[in-house]
C-alpha cells in the first residue's frame, strides 16, 4: 500500500499535476507519525509513510494548503474523505485545487491505544499481515491490529469515499451493522443523576488545551468565540465546572449536523475524554427526529440544522422520550 501511494505521489508531482502532497511522515519512533506536506520527490522517498498507525485525519490541512498555488494531492481514508466532502460543501476547500486519492482502510491504531494495553517502553513496531510486532525495553509482544483499534474504527461507519479523483485499493460500503450509537443509548437509559455524574467525571478532567477543537475538521472558524475577547465568554481555562460544560456543549452544538463522526476529538484528547459521545448524541437525535443524515455523504447536502419541515417535532419531545425521569 505504502509503495503504491509513494509511486502515485511521485508520479503526480513529477508530471506537474500537483504542486504538493499531503501525507504522513515518519517520526522519532515507529508510532509518532506527523501529518506533513511533501514538495519534493526526495522528501517522499525518504520520509513518506503509510501503515496502521497513520491515524491523523489530514483533510483539515487543506483549508490552508488548498489556498496555495497549484493543486494539492491528499490521501484520504474513508473517514477523512467524509470530512473533505463536508469542507467542500461548506466552501472551506475549493474542489478544483484538490487532487484526492482515496485509500482503503481496515482501521487504525495509535500509541495511546497500544500503551493502554500496558505495553510500555516501545522501541520498535513493525507490521506484518495485520499483526504488530512490538519491541519494548521490557520484552517483545505480538498484537493483532484488530485488538488495538481505536473506538471509531471498532465502530467503523463507512468504508466508502464520498469524494475522490482516484482510488488505491478497493472501494467499500457503508457499514450496516455499525454499533456506534450503542454507547449513547446506554447513557440515555441512565437516570439524570447518573448521567450528570458520568459527564461530570469525564468533563472535569478537561484541561482546556483546545486540541479537540483545533483538530476538528468541522471547526474551521477563523476566530473561535472562545478565543475572542470581545465575545464576553472567551476563556483560557475553565475556572468553574460551568465553564467546562459550556465549552463542550457549545463545541458539540456548533458542529451538530456538520460533524462527520471522524473521531479525531476523542483521539487527541490528552485526558481520554470520550468527546465523540456528545457529537454522536446530536447525530443520533438528528437521525431519529429528522431522518437519517450523514454529514459529508454527498457534496452540497443541506445540514439538518439549516433546514426544516413544517411538521418537525416540538422540543417537548425531549420530555417524553429517552432517559428516565427525575422521579
Amino acid at each position, binding site marked *: 500500500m505504502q509503495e503504491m501511494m509513494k509511486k502515485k505521489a511521485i508520479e503526480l508531482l513529477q508530471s506537474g499535476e500537483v504542486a504538493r502532497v499531503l501525507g504522513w511522515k515518519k517520526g522519532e519512533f515507529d508510532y509518532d507519525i506527523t501529518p506533513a506536506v511533501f514538495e519534493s520527490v526526495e522528501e517522499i522517498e525518504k520520509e513518506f509513510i503509510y501503515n496502521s498507525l497513520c491515524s491523523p485525519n489530514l483533510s483539515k490541512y487543506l483549508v490552508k494548503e488548498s489556498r496555495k498555488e497549484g493543486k494539492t494531492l491528499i490521501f484520504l481514508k474513508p473517514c477523512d474523505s467524509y470530512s473533505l466532502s463536508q469542507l467542500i460543501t461548506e466552501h472551506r476547500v475549493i474542489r478544483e485545487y484538490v487532487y484526492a486519492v482515496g485509500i482503503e482502510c481496515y482501521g487504525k491504531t495509535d500509541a495511546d491505544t497500544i500503551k493502554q494495553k500496558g505495553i510500555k517502553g516501545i522501541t520498535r513496531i513493525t507490521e506484518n499481515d495485520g499483526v504488530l510486532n512490538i519491541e519494548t525495553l521490557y520484552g517483545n509482544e505480538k498484537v493483532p491490529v484488530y485488538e488495538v483499534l481505536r473506538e471509531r474504527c471498532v465502530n467503523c461507519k463507512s468504508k466508502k469515499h464520498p469524494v475522490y479523483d482516484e482510488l488505491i485499493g478497493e472501494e467499500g460500503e457503508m457499514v450496516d451493522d455499525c454499533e456506534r450509537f450503542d454507547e449513547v443509548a446506554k447513557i440515555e437509559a441512565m437516570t439524570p443523576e447518573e448521567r450528570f455524574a458520568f459527564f461530570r467525571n469525564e468533563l472535569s478532567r478537561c484541561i482546556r488545551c483546545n486540541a479537540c477543537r483545533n483538530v476538528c475538521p468541522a471547526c474551521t472558524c477563523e476566530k473561535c468565540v472562545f478565543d475572542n475577547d470581545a465575545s464576553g465568554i472567551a476563556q483560557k481555562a475553565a475556572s468553574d465546572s*460551568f465553564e467546562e460544560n459550556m465549552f463542550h456543549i457549545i463545541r458539540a452544538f456548533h458542529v451538530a449536523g456538520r460533524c462527520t463522526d471522524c473521531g479525531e476529538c476523542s483521539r487527541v484528547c490528552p485526558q481520554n475524554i470520550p468527546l465523540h459521545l456528545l457529537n454522536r448524541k446530536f447525530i443520533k437525535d438528528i437521525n431519529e*427526529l429528522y431522518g437519517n443524515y450523514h454529514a459529508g455523504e454527498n457534496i452540497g447536502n443541506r445540514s439538518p440544522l439549516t433546514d426544516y419541515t413544517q411538521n418537525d417535532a416540538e*422540543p417537548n419531545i425531549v420530555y417524553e422520550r429517552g432517559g428516565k425521569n427525575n422521579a
Partner: protein
Amino acid sequence: MQMVNNEFKPKIVAFCCNWCSYAGADLAGTNRLQYPAEVKIIRVPCSCRVNPMFILRAFQRGADGVIICGCHPGDCHYTTGNYYARRRMTLLFSMLDFLGIEKERTRLEWVSAAEGQKFASTMNDFVKTVTELGENKRLEDLRCKK
C-alpha cells in the same frame, strides 16, 4: 399570616420574540392577567435569534429556568425563523438532558400577539415547575453566587 421569608423564588429568563410573544406579554399586562414577577423578559427580534450561548449564559448568571417564546409555526414574521429555532432548541434541550441537566428547566412555547391568556398561564405553569425543581445546581457558576 406572614409568608415564610426563605421560600424559594426561582429566577426565570424568558426570551420573547418581538412580533408575537412580546406583544402577547404586553396583552397579558394590559388585560391585568397575573403572572409571577420572577419572570424576566428579554426581547429578541425572532425566536431564532436565541443562540444556545444565551441560554447557557442565563443559567450561569443565576437563572433557574429559561423559556423561549416565539410566533406559532407558520406565523413567523420572517417566515421561517421559528422553524429553525425549533430544531435548534430541540437538539439543545436534548443535549442538556443527555448531560443530566434537568430538562424541565428549559422550554419552548409558541405564543401569538393575541394570546395574552396563554402567555400568563404558560409562565405560571413554568414558574411552578421550576419552583418544584428548586435551585439550578447542575448548570450554575459558583462564582456568580452571592
